[in-house]
């Protein structure tokens, strides 16, 4: 996925000289190709994120198309007010890329982890939010972002989980991508790193649908409404707080237009406690596959929803540290 991002950046800059990549002194090795091919369009703004976003606003007002890169903990979270006031209020064409979203920086602790970005940004008018799950979605998302006339946040989480699509999906704003269709009572809607988990966990209930949601804002309310209408339970999965993210967005639509059970899987309003591998951190937050499977089973049991487990589904195991 990072290669697809890097390729899309280079392509954007070579096709449009107005593109300027700004980084807050982050992105080691990620921009090697960009710096080699488009050196005059690369700008390391230093460890000064607030100024970087203000400068991006000025550049956009002056006719350029800035792409502002940072770790998600810093861009957008540290500079939320600059994004609100300097960029969104004027609806400027600036793309923000938040890298390492979720608990990717598992060993570095809370300063580098970010499970609140979607919630913080969803309430900002004019801002669109993209959250690709694989390289194909990344390519499609970068195309959407580049063609857009207003600000976009591109959330880049765990990037080496493999493909969920076989080719670039035909993505439009708000669109969610069907990955598995079926006629069972459960539907899974996931975003970013959790799409793979959704695919594996969904296999345990026959006929479950699985959707990937790379466009979190806007989110296609009509499709979500149809999914909610057609299913007894909709499970949402995200490497983000259960508050204010994908699950909340789906629940908002369901509550007003198609009430059904919404099981929100995500970070449960807590900070990471311990240090460890990415897989360890997922287990700590009960976001590893066995824990997600258990949570869905418990959700169903607590509501007396009797949907039998498919005993023939492949067993899932959590990766354990050696």
């Amino acid at each position: 996925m990072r290669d697809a991002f890097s390729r899309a950046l280079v392509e954007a800059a070579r096709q449009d000289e107005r593109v300027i990549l700004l980084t807050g002194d982050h992105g080691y090795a990620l921009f090697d190709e960009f710096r080699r091919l488009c050196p005059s369009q690369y700008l390391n703004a230093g460890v000064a994120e607030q100024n970087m976003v203000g400068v991006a606003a000025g550049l956009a007002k002056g006719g350029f198309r800035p792409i502002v890169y940072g770790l998600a903990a810093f861009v957008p979270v540290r500079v939320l007010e600059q994004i609100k006031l300097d960029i969104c209020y004027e609806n400027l064409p600036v793309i923000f890329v938040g890298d390492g979203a979720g608990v990717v920086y598992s060993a570095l602790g809370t300063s580098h982890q970010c499970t609140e970005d979607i919630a913080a940004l969803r309430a900002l008018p004019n801002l669109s939010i993209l959250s690709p799950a694989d390289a194909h979605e990344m390519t499609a998302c970068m195309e959407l972002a580049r063609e857009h006339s207003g600000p976009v946040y591109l959330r880049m989480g765990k990037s080496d989980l493999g493909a969920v699509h076989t080719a670039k999906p035909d993505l439009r704003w708000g669109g969610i991508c069907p990955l598995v269709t079926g006629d069972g009572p459960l539907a899974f809607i996931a975003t970013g790193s959790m799409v793979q988990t959704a695919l594996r966990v969904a296999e345990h209930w026959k006929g479950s649908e699985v959707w990937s949601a790379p466009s979190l804002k806007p989110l296609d309310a009509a499709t979500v409404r149809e999914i909610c209408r057609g299913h007894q339970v909709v499970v949402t999965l995200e490497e983000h707080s259960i508050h204010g993210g994908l699950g909340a967005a789906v629940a908002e639509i369901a509550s007003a237009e198609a009430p059904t059970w919404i099981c929100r899987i995500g970070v449960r309003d807590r900070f990471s406690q311990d240090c460890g591998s990415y897989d360890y951190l997922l287990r700590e937050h009960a976001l590893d596959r066995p824990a997600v499977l258990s949570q869905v089973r418990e959700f169903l049991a607590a509501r007396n929803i009797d949907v039998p487990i498919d005993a023939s589904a492949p067993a899932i195991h959590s990766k354990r540290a050696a």
Partner: protein
Amino acid sequence: MPRFDPTQLRRTILEMAYHGSTVHIACAFSLVEILATLYRSHVRLDTDDPRAAARDYLVLSKGHGVMAQYACLHELGWINDDDLRRYFADGTRLKGLSDAHVPGCEVTSGSLGHGLSVGVGLALAARRRGSDQRCFAIVGDGELNEGSIWEALMFAAHHRLSNLTVIVDENGFQAMGRVREVMDLGRIAAKLTAFGLETREVDGHDEAALDQALGELARCPSSAPRAVVARTIKGRGVSFMEDDNRWHYTRLTPETYARALAELSR
């Protein structure tokens, strides 16, 4: 061409403040001669089009002084008499702090420490386009508390943005007290020089001195960004407002309005 007469500008500010029953009168008064000098002789504008592509940018980062800018925009004909009289009336467009949606205002400020960075970006954009456009960014001394101001200064100096002029309205006060008592800045000019800016220090109510400093900086061959530290008096122009921070917050009564207007009519 408008005259930008400081006394008339202060009368306009007073009229707006009275009709709108607003605060921040003293913040606007300290900056009147700075804006008058800039608009009259240094900022190149198309008076028929506030958004003309080739304009110089006047960025009011110190958004609390916006009434002084409105008074200048009124002289330019970009704001009409009705806008002044209906200041703060329901459904009107002129807000109590600088707002980029108002033609003639380049940035949305009031949250401090934003405008200078945007101005730096505008200056950088102009240079990258090969344009000779310049950016004049006005910050308050209280605003210098914001860390982002110093981030912007470092960036401007590093990128040798000689088309950027930072003007500090040093009125010695911030919202809750004297700057030296809240967050002593020492000598601001020395700090700006240390950050790599070509800096002048002048009496910010002396238009000839402001004019000379800005002219000198425009001719100066240095590739550094420029700065003018303008020493001003908060509330300047009305004796009972001068150097009295209550006029950051106090609204005019019919009595104080009449007294202030009488002083400005002498």
